[in-house]
């Protein structure tokens, strides 16, 4: 399985990838994108099995990326990993078709809980 991690911060992409490993999903392939535009192009080209995306990014933000993907007929499972976890943001994410919103800071347990419905653990 392939996971696309979209975040404009390389530091945060590293933390997300490390947390995936700690949560038991380290055996999946990970590809990275540094904004929503690059993520959208990569999803349409490479068809990953899951997208984990930041919300607030330059060029194209995460919610516009998700809306764009759905408009293009792409149903890829999509979850946000963002510092903004308010009810309003969660409602907007769900309305656009996101499966979950993980608020930063997060733990490996949060990842395991959110991702277990989508991905099989790899140990």
């Amino acid at each position: 399985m392939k996971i696309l991690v979209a975040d404009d911060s390389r530091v945060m992409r590293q933390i997300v990838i490390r947390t995936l490993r700690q949560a038991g999903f380290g055996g999946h392939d990970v590809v990275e994108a540094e904004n929503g535009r690059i993520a959208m192009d990569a999803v349409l080209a490479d068809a990953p099995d899951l997208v984990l995306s930041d919300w607030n990014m330059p060029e194209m933000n995460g919610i516009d990326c998700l809306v764009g993907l759905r408009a293009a007929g792409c149903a890829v499972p999509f979850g946000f990993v963002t510092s903004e976890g308010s009810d309003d943001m969660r409602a907007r994410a769900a309305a656009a078709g996101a499966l979950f919103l993980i608020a930063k800071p997060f733990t490996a347990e949060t990842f395991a809980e959110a991702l277990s419905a989508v991905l099989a653990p790899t140990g």
Partner: protein
Amino acid sequence: MSTAAPTLDDVRSLTEEVWASFLGEAEPLLPGAGGPTGGWSAAITVTGGWEGMVTVELTDRVAAAVTQQMLGMAEDEVASDEDVADAVGELVNMVGGNVKSLMPGPSTLSLPVVAVGRVARPSDAVEACRVEASWLGEPVVVSVHVFGAAAA
């Protein structure tokens, strides 16, 4: 626009939560005496239902250690300025995003701005709360400013 401001306890507790999640393994964030830190600083603004600015100030040594921890680098690896700017920006993004979530919305979070030295604040910004902490024996300062009408 709301004239509310987050409480000192709220900002302290979410700062400690950020530290505990990504930086606390080596050493927890402790209460500190604060004071100007020199080194690196980062700011992020919230506009909309609530308007304010969150800043983080770190010494050079703390900024470098934050970067090493967040990137999982070895102790003898030197973090580049680009990596330090990224890590410090992500710290203020997390604190700022959590402050935004506490305040009335809807509002928008900016992208972080990172500087060597202190970030200049707009003249109508008034400090609403200031968390003075210590990590690795050096000061860490997180502050929240509110703007204009909200500060009056």
